[in-house]
Every structure is written in C-alpha cells, then in structure tokens.
C-alpha cells in the first residue's frame, strides 16, 4: 500500500500537465504580477507581493489537488486499469484513500515553489508564527478540491473530465478572487466570490498574512466544504466502482 501511494505520487510528478499547471503557471504569474504591483499596498494593508503570494500559492495548490485527481482517475476507470487493480487483493477503498493522500502530498511542492519565489525573488518575509499558520492552512485547505477532483473523475469519462476539471479550476480561481482581488469586484460578484470554497480557502491565507490569524468562520466554511465535497467524492466513487 505504501508502494502504491509512492507510485501514485511519482506518476503525477512525471506528468507534463501537472508540471505546467502546477509548477510553471503559478510561479510565473507570481513573478510577473509581483514585479509590476509588488510594492503597492493590497487589501488588509499588506504589500501586494505578500497578498499575491497567497493568491498564487492557493492557485497552485488548487491546481495540484485537481490535476492529480480528476483526469488520472477518469482515465484509469475507462482504460481498465482500475479493473486490473480490482482483481488484486487491494481493498477498493484504498484506491480513493491513496489518491486523496497523494493529491495532498502533491500540493506541497506547489506551495513551496510559490513561497520560495516570494521569499527569494520578491523579498517577502513573514514572522515565523504566520508561516506556521499559513502553511498548514493552505495545505490542508485543499482537501475540498482534491475531493472535487475525485468526484469529477468518478462521474465523467476522460474526454469530459479534462475540460470539466480545468473549467472548475479556472472558474473557481476567478470567482474566488485569486486572479483579481475580491475588493475590486462589484457587489453581486463579491457575493458570488464569498460563496465559493476557493475564496473561503484563500481568505484563510490573506487573513494570516494581514496579521488577523485564522478566522473561525472561514475555517468552519472550509471544513463544511471538505465534508460536503468529500461525501460527494465517496458517493461518486462507490457508484463508479459498483459491480452491476
């Protein structure tokens, strides 16, 4: 089982889609945007280079969680690989557990790369206490998105899962304020943003870097999304692997 988890992680690290969406995109966008706006002041009174670090780390983490789940799982189902595993003694539930675990593991490099770019290139520095809250919040906060990716992979065939995952990823990032801050959105858009799990997730990070700690309402909201999407993922997984 440990070997299975290792192999699951390894295969995604070798995948080009993962590399582009997770490694290149967020770091490049961060460097470009913080190069232009980095010295300005963002919402919460922090420098843009700090605010953008959180936005892009969230985007990279979101991409990692979804890219490593939706399409690979949809492909395994349709290609017969999941049947190949079902003939072995591997218990069915370990497949979804290992995939969720591997997805979480794969979020870490995405976070680390944006943080490293921020610290090394843009000269961001945060108090140790803030890092200690920021990293686990942005890491474990991706659980809802890994669950969403697994649900998409269970419900759709590969040629539909790919666009669905990408649309969900970009749609949620845009609506959740990762591309443009929620503060510059109009009222109705702001209401939409507040309803997305991505905004709630990123809010944890923005609040920490602004010195506000972890907001209880935000934590509860992300937790609720994790439970809801996790239940959806388990249900969809059961339906997709049932022997009819």
């Amino acid at each position: 089982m440990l070997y299975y988890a290792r192999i699951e992680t390894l295969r995604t690290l070798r995948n080009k889609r993962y590399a582009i969406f997770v490694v290149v995109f967020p770091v490049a966008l961060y460097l470009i945007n913080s190069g232009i706006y980095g010295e300005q002041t963002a919402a919460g009174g922090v420098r843009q280079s700090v605010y953008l670090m959180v936005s892009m780390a969230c985007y990279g983490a979101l991409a990692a969680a979804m890219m490593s789940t939706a399409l690979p799982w949809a492909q395994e189902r349709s290609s017969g690989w999941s049947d190949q595993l079902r003939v072995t003694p591997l218990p069915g539930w370990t497949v979804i557990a290992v995939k969720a675990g591997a997805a979480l593991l794969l979020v870490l490099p995405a976070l680390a790369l944006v943080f490293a770019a921020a610290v090394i290139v843009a000269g961001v520095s945060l108090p140790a206490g803030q890092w200690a809250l920021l990293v686990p919040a942005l890491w474990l906060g991706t659980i809802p998105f890994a669950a969403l990716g697994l649900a998409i992979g269970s419900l759709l065939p590969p040629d539909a899962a790919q666009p669905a995952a990408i649309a969900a990823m970009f749609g949620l990032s845009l609506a959740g304020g990762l591309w443009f801050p929620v503060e510059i959105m109009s009222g109705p858009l702001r209401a939409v943003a507040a309803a997305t799990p991505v905004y709630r997730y990123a809010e944890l990070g923005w609040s920490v870097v602004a010195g506000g700690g972890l907001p209880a309402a935000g934590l509860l909201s992300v937790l609720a999304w994790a439970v809801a999407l996790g239940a959806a993922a388990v249900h969809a997984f059961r339906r997709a692997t049932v022997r009819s």
Partner: protein
Amino acid sequence: MKAIVFDQAGKRFGDVTAVGGLSFAIEPGSTVALLGRNGAGKSTTIRMLLGLLEPSSGAVYVHGRPPRAAAAAGELGAMLQEGRLIPELTVRELVALVRGLYPRPLDLDEILGLAGLTGLARRRAGTLSGGQAQRVRFALAVAGAPRVLVLDEPTAAMDVESRLRFWDGMRDYAADGRTVLFATHHLEEADEHADRVIVLAGGGLAADGTAARIKAAAGGHVIRFALGGQPASGLDRLPGVTSAEVAGGTAVLRTDDADATLAALYRRTTLDVRDLELSAAGLEAAFLALTREP
C-alpha cells in the same frame, strides 16, 4: 475442490441476456479455452468470474469462494481485454506495484523473465508497442502467483514474436499446477494450447470437451462438389448430413458419416456430381457448425 464453478450463472443488461444460465466446472491444474465469436458472451463470463460483474442469476465460485473473496485472498490474476497501462510508470514499477499487492507473489525478475520483459524493465509504459504492452499485462496477471489465471483474448494486438513468447510463458506458468482459463476466437489457439475447450454461442454453452471431441461432435467430414444449375433440395436429408449449403454452384455438405452420405449421393439421387472433394472437418468447420446463429 474445483478451481472454477459456474452454477446456472446468468447476466442480463436490461432486456438483453448476455449470458444465460451457464454451468460448468473446471479442475485445478487444467488449461481451458473459452471459445466463441464476438458477442457470444465470453467477456461477460470472464468479468463474472473475476468479480467485476455480479451475476443476475446463479453463482460463480473460485476455489469454493465467491470471486470477490477469492480476489481478496490473491487467488485471481487477470489479463483484461481493455487495459491501458499507466503511461508515466516503468515496466518494472508497474510489475512491482501489482506484485506487492499479493500475499505470495513471484520473484520480480522471474516475472519479467516469464513475460519476456527483462530488456524492457526500465522503459515507461507509454513508449511500448502494442505487443510489448500486452506482455506487460501478462506479467501483471501472473505477478501475484494466483492459482487461477484468467486471460481475455490475450493475443489480440500481439505480433508473431510476442505471441510465441506469450504462449511459452503461459505454458511455463500453467505447468506448476495452476489453472488457466483463456478466451479466444482463434480456433488454432484453443486447439493447440488448451486441454479443454468450452464453446459459447449466443450467451450459452454450445459445446464442452477436448478439441478432438468437439471436432467429432460437430460433424467429421465436409463433402464439396460442383452442383451447377441442378436443384439442391433434399441434400440436407441425405443420411449423415448435418448441414448443407449451396453457394455459387458449389454444394458443401457436412456429415458425420461420410460413407453413408456418399453412397446415398450417388445411388439415391439423380444428380450429376462433379469435382467431388472429401475432407476432414477442421475445428473451424466444427466451430462454425456449433456457433451458427439459429
């Protein structure tokens, strides 16, 4: 204890009966071919045997247990028809992954050798040819040293070299007293590699026995002659004839008593029989006779 038992196992998909009440039992250590045309129910039968499909009626047992329990105990290994590998993983990683899931697997190098993959161990699956990928899938099927090995059309997409290596590997594997069941629509494969042939047609059992017995049961000889424009009526009622067909002025009779048929053809009909050929029916003819749609 039987290695495989089908007890009135049937499978319906909506209104369509893919397999209807199938019963047979297979002794441990035997190599059995499941022969049938496309759509005869081979894949459905195999998926029920592997626990990937639940029978709509009846039951299936592998060494006395339902297939899911047998799979959990590492009794089953399978090479499925549809089975793309994970392209980012190497051959060695794939084999090591599957072998690690079984309680008493074969040695990694032994598996690679058995499947003829030793030289390909470090290649990523995405770069393999169709035949090479098929050999990897064979390696995955045997990796856990399952007592029951199930192969669904294993040589489809294999080139000649892969095919030869594959059958060698399968023979070596089966030689250790393990049970092998393979589905095929290649008659020569069933004839050459199986101790027993189970013929499926229209989702039911059409014949069951050794290749030789199936040949005999399906009519031993074929008589072929030029009929020209003469009427063909009555040919199918000649003694011994199991089927009669006329196409392009040539009559083809299948018979299980060639002497009686020939005697009657000359003595009891007024036909002008020319260019007559008599041949032993091959498994091909037997197969066609057994699986003809009603």
